[in-house]
């Protein structure tokens, strides 16, 4: 997944105006290999923590993973997204080729780490028991995460992948990239806002 993207010919004798043809697309890898190795190492550590039922490690994975997941979702949806929307097309392409491959590895890793560690932590703390006073809050968090999962996996991630593969073409279709990026930014904004509900539920759980 790391084909070289050819950039259209640029003449040194054309000082006036932008170069003809589509904007240049920097070479990029759709899935960063280093990121996959790091993600794999984190998953192995998570499995070891679950197998050993280490309370501190489970708490660390859940809090650190959940904090990053929530923070990144909020930041991308409410800060980065609108900025990308106002960028010029070449700047948007350059940003996307560097930003979106990383998101492709970071987000699924954070999601699985947070959910698996959180489930084990809830079990350890007795929140899974139906008679636990926190059981209702826990089920509410399942529902919020479930809705976010449908939006992220059914709309956001397919748009992310489609943009990356479009950018790998010799002549990317700018109109299509714009349409897909609007979907990506809109859904990132929706999941970002939904993360506020997660923050409310989790802080209530932690202090009840």
């Amino acid at each position, binding site marked *: *997944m790391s084909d070289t993207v050819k950039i259209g010919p640029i003449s040194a004798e054309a000082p006036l105006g932008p170069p003809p043809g*589509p904007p240049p697309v920097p070479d990029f890898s759709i*899935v960063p290999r280093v990121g996959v190795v790091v993600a794999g190492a984190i*998953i192995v550590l*998570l*499995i070891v923590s*679950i*197998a050993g039922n280490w309370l501190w490690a489970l708490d660390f994975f859940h809090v650190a993973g959940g904090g990053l997941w929530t923070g990144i979702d909020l930041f991308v949806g409410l800060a980065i997204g609108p900025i990308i929307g106002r960028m010029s097309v070449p700047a948007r392409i350059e940003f996307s080729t560097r930003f979106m491959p990383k998101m492709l590895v970071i987000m*699924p890793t954070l999601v*699985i780490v947070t959910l*698996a560690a959180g*489930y*084990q932590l809830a*079990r350890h703390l007795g929140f*899974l*028991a*139906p008679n636990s006073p926190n*059981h209702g809050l*826990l*089920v509410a968090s*399942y*529902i919020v995460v*479930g809705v976010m*999962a*449908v939006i992220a*996996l*059914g*709309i956001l*991630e*397919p*748009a992310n*992948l*489609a943009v990356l*593969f*479009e950018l790998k*073409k*010799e*002549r*990317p*279709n*700018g109109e*299509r990239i714009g349409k897909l990026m609007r979907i990506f930014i809109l859904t990132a904004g929706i999941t970002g806002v939904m993360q506020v509900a997660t923050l409310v539920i989790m802080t209530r759980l932690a202090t009840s």
Partner: protein
Amino acid sequence: MTAAMENADVTDERTLPPIGELGIAALILVVAAGIYLTAQTNRHPNLVPAVIALTLAGVVVAVAVVMLARIGKFAWGKFRMVFGWALLEYAVIAGMLVYVFVLDHIPSATLAVLIAALVLFAVDIPMMFGFAVARYQPVSP
């Protein structure tokens, strides 16, 4: 070659079946069944609602697969590549969750339904990803 020329070989979007929409419908059913079951961990839940939701999800995924297979001109090479890698990723995620459920001694009937949900999850998502990419790619055999 212009963008219009390169994209001339892309599958005509008007003729494509609603694979993405069907995938989302199946995902909603799988997630609903998963929430219902995990909300009742530590007890023996009535499995009928979850089984009904998963059966419907299975039917929706099967319909999507049949519709997908009947597409004539399509970027099958790109579809297989994305589907394969995503299948590997989501199989790992589903495997991890099964491991957690087994470790927690979830009752066997509930575990079987959860595994069915995770299998559907691990097939449905790669199908959506593969379709989302391949629909905009030049047609291949």
